[in-house]
């Protein structure tokens, strides 16, 4: 068993796992009932999918500048995507999208959430 074959297999496995998680994230986006739960599904495609796919590509690239660039891309993604997710959810809440929340008896209902807006987050300012 030579090393090249092992690395190739590992990289292929990572690529396939990443693609699988991206697809599952897409399915979740369609299945979830409201904005906030859909964002949870979308965060699968934000985190696990790029981590695995870029990891697999790094193994293909070897110890080169290409891999360094892939590391930088991954870091930028991991630093910026939560900021975008937070902005999206805060905007949805500020626009009055009521989240679907679980009741103690197991059902779910739309609930008004009391969210005091900070001064600079007031819409129209």
């Amino acid at each position, binding site marked *: 068993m030579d090393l090249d074959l092992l690395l190739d297999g590992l990289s292929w496995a990572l690529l396939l796992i990443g693609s699988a*998680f991206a697809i*599952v*994230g897409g*399915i*979740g986006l369609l*299945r*979830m*009932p*409201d904005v*906030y*739960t859909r*964002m*949870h*599904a979308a*965060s*699968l495609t*934000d*985190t*696990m999918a790029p*981590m695995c796919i870029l990891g697999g590509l790094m193994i293909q690239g070897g110890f080169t*500048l290409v891999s*360094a*660039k892939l590391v*930088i891309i991954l870091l930028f993604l*991991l*630093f910026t*995507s*939560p*900021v975008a*997710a*937070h902005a999206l*959810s*805060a905007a949805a*809440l500020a626009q009055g999208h009521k*989240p*679907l*929340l*679980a009741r103690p008896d*197991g059902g*779910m209902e739309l609930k008004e*959430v009391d*969210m*005091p807006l*900070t001064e600079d987050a007031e819409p129209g300012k």
Partner: protein
Amino acid sequence: MVHAAGLGLSMYILWLLLSGHYVALLLSLGAISCAFIVWIMHRMDTIDHESFPLHMTPRGLGYFPWLVWEIVKSNWSVAKIILSPGLPISPTMVTVKATQRTDVGRVTYANSITLTPGTLSVHMEGDEIVVHGITRDGAESLKDGDMDRRVSRLEGFVR
């Protein structure tokens, strides 16, 4: 001064990695651009521990693998929820306390919460973060404060 030097150095390393051309003319052009940007940021007075959290870097190297492992674990559980036919979700909103002392620390904590699938930081008021969780258990598990403690340790104050 340490921050300015560190900023310039890390920008130059980034430039070297992205360019890939190592001839004298391009190397010096890159050095000039980096020095120019450090000078502009110095004039704007934006070089400090906040824009360039140098003090968090060594501890961050320990925190990051832990966070990646948490991300992998919660990815697995959210994927299982999505693929199970009954869609067993119980969306819950909880308020968690952020015990970090600096803004950088609080942002790191809120971003870590969002980055972990299944929990999403929706709103922040003072030292309280409003979190939307896809299951009740997932949202409540934040309250035991394991991640909070780790981010606080990242800040480096002795406690």
